[in-house]
């Protein structure tokens, strides 16, 4: 199938036509071929890549499946997502990662890259068969115990060393378990008033500092998941100045929300790592804009209603984010003038694709690139409505939030999987 | 709105009531006055003053009836007013309840219940400045300053100088 996106604006601001033939962009310029699709007023961006998604399958299909998660991803403008390993059973063997990979292929709405667990059962004690997962059909390159921290320094060192043999990366969930026993929210003024057990910034920063030094020592690749603190940003900034091979991510919710929201005791704001203070939010925004933080990742964490419709301490940690990520990033980073559109492309597409070694993702919108594209309207006001989401779960903290930019079409391998904000029912076979 | 009773009329009415209390009780040895807050309490004090002028010191107290009202649920909760036991208590005494306006009788019913919490008087009598009729319970006053026929669409407003700056009783449209 051949078609032309006419009158579309690139991230650099120029207006042009983009011709797609099959799975590839064949031309960017004045040429028009095949069906003409009027895209005036829309921006075309490389499809977004999420390096941190919980798709819950296998094991918790009541909250999300690979298919429903892929639908949510497509609606959010993502053409690739990385499925975290904390499923049941844990994705710590070639068998489980291949199952997730296959489910992603069957869904056909975006690429689904399974992330392998670092340790068996996420227990932090024994390395999982990282090589087997790397060699499997899923070609796993990103490994993480996310949800749990690889807290044992020796285990972490070995994991960092071991993945060098196949160009892997360890994505660390930085949380010292001893300093966060029973922790419920950011430790500070708000937690002192609310009587909720505090989650100190140092519990995150101490692990980041340690792992940066370990990565330097063994000359491996470290990726730090969901950075939330000002101190963490400083540590990553320092490590980059030293030339250490560290990348870092931030979530949309940590760029917008602060811990005073917990005053409602509404568990929709309960998330790991926790919402921090305004000073942290400002530092994260600066870090994302200046290149200290490499990527935005959603940490999309679906939970069934009953896990949030309860008292705070009994509730599950996590928020969904695939369908709101783009709008929130525009609100926090573009509208505030903190970041340019080309930088948005880097943090939402180019960089995560590089970190994950996702070869068909994150390419520039130029002739010859795979046709994985997101078309967005940068100026179209809308209000987040959890009832209209495609995710199986409703635990968004942004319900009712006014946003000004939205995803209109998502093209995955040349196929319009989302057209005019609606899933088309088409998929890439 | 013209005043039904002005200051002098109120004085006269209270003096008459005071004399009737003496007459009825053949002396004042066992009489105590219990005013129902807010305005009944001031009226009780005034009667005690008059009796003092006539040479008799009568113990005065106040009786808050809030907790015994049967119309609590018709209005937002109200703070309790003070209940002050008269010196010597009420046990075996002739208690004269004093209130400003006698209307449905429900306040007095509540007052009788509240009195039961405090003790067992020998007799209970009732003095009111105005009886406006429309009784809903079998209750009558022993001492009445002024009988004032009213319609249900009207309301009787009593003002006393202790809190309202002037002494005055008037009929106003019901709220």
């Amino acid at each position, binding site marked *: 199938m051949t078609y032309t996106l006419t009158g579309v604006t690139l991230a650099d601001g120029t207006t042009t036509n983009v011709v797609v033939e099959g799975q590839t962009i064949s031309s960017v310029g004045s040429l028009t071929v095949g069906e003409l699709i009027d895209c005036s007023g829309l921006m075309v961006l490389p499809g977004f890549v999420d390096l941190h998604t919980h798709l819950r399958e296998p094991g918790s299909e009541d909250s999300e499946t690979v298919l429903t998660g892929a639908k949510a991803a497509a609606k959010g403008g993502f053409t690739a997502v990385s499925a975290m390993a904390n499923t049941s059973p844990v994705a710590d063997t070639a068998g489980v990662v291949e199952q997730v990979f296959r489910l992603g292929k069957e869904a056909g709405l975006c690429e689904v890259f399974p992330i392998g667990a670092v340790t068996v059962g996420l227990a932090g004690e024994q390395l999982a068969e990282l090589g087997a997962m790397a060699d499997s059909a899923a070609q796993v390159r990103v490994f993480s115990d996310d949800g749990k921290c690889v807290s044992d320094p020796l285990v972490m060192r070995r994991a960092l060393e071991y993945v060098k043999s196949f160009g892997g990366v360890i994505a660390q969930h930085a949380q010292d378990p001893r300093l966060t026993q029973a922790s419920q929210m950011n430790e500070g003024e708000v937690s*002192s008033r609310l009587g909720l057990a505090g989650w100190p910034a140092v519990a995150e920063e101490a692990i980041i500092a340690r792992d940066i030094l370990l990565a330097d020592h063994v000359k491996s690749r470290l990726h730090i998941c969901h950075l939330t603190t000002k101190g963490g940003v400083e540590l990553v900034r320092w490590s980059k100045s030293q030339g250490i091979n560290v990348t870092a991510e931030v979530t949309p919710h940590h760029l917008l929300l602060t811990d005073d929201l917990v005053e409602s*005791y509404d568990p929709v704001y309960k998330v790991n790592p926790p919402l921090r203070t305004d000073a942290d939010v400002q530092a994260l925004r600066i870090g994302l804009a200046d290149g200290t933080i490499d990527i935005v990742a959603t940490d999309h964490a679906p939970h069934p209603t009953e896990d949030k419709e309860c008292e*705070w301490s009994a509730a599950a940690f996590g928020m969904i984010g695939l369908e709101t990520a783009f709008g929130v990033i525009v609100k926090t980073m573009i509208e505030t003038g903190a970041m340019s559109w080309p930088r948005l492309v880097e943090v939402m597409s180019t960089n995560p694709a590089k970190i994950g070694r996702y070869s068909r993702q994150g390419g520039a919108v130029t002739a010859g690139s795979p046709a994985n594209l997101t078309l967005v309207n940068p100026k179209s006001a809308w209000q987040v409505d959890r009832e209209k989401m495609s995710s199986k779960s409703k635990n968004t903290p942004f319900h009712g939030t006014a946003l000004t930019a939205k995803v209109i079409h998502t093209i995955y391998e040349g196929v319009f999987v989302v057209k005019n904000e609606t899933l088309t029912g088409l998929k890439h076979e | 709105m013209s005043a039904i009773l002005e200051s002098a009329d109120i004085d006269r009415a209270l003096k008459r009531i005071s004399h009737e209390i003496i007459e009825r009780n053949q002396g004042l040895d066992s009489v105590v006055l219990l005013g129902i807050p807010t305005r009944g309490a001031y009226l009780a004090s005034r009667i005690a003053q008059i009796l003092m002028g006539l040479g008799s010191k009568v113990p005065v107290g106040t009786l808050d009836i809030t*907790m015994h009202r049967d119309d609590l649920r018709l209005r937002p*909760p*109200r703070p309790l007013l003070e209940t002050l036991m008269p010196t010597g208590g009420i046990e075996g005494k002739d208690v004269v309840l004093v209130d400003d306006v006698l209307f449905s009788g429900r306040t007095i019913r509540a007052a009788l219940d509240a009195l039961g919490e405090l003790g067992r008087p020998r007799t209970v009598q009732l003095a009111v400045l105005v009886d406006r009729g429309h009784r809903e319970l079998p209750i009558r006053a022993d001492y009445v300053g002024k009988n004032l026929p009213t319609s249900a669409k009207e309301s009787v407003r009593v003002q006393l100088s202790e809190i309202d700056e002037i002494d005055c009783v008037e009929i106003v449209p019901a709220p």
Partner: protein
Amino acid sequence: MKNQLLSINDLSKDDVLSILSTAAELERITEGPTKKLPTLRGRTVVNLFFEDSTRTRISFETAAKRLSADVINFSAKGSSVSKGESLKDTAQTLQAIGADAVVIRHGSSGAAQRLSDSGWINATVINAGDGTHEHPTQALLDAFTISKRFPERKSDFSGLKVAIVGDILHSRVARSNVLLLTKLGASVTLIAPPTLLPVGVESWPVLVSYDLDEELPEFDVVMMLRIQLERMQNFYFPSEREYSRRYGLNEDRLLRMKQSGIVMHPGPMNRGLEISAASADSSRSVIVNQVGNGVSVRMAVLYLLLGGASLSEVSQ
């Protein structure tokens, strides 16, 4: 006054004064021959206790019964209640029963607010202690106890110096008392080892000290908090003996207190740990009075929250 009592923050200063004066009147009435008032006849009060607290439950139960309310005790502890969804199920059950008020004690901070905000139930929610957050009626009874001991102040606590000593970090009593006593004008000093003070305490309207002895003779009120022995396992303090020596109210310290100073404790006490037996039983101690005052204060709260028309009745 709001139609709920989840936190001292729900109360204005006038609300507090109204509760204290109502409690004083109710205490006077119930000193008479009949202890029972008809005020809440036909109202249903549910004591919903997810945590054991016999004294708080009995206090609320007595208060409600003296006002002629129907009382249902619902102990959710020991049943299959372990996940939060049960809070919702329980709430909906109570809604179906027709509870007018739910007095809730729960181990999770914010549980009372959750119950009130969730829309699961229309009843008036009264917080009888939520996790390590607040215990507003305890603070009200403490303020009532103080105001009775210092009657000349007429509930104006300005200039009154209050020390709260012990495990501030985990104390709902401390949080509610800080809010309430400072609202009434008192100067509050928190005294604890640094491990038992919350990070962020510097934002509270209080003074903080690590030393019990330093200003001990200055305080009009010394409120001792219960120390839980399991805290030792998390290294909050090295040993009972050391805690007791540094932060316990023993006889020597009792003697150094101001002539008019009083000793309080929300109970239950660990005699010999945070408070010596002699201190607990001394003439300065108002600990027994606190218990009796609890009933009057809880009657006042129940009356003011339930005694009048409810919001739905007003709108009718």
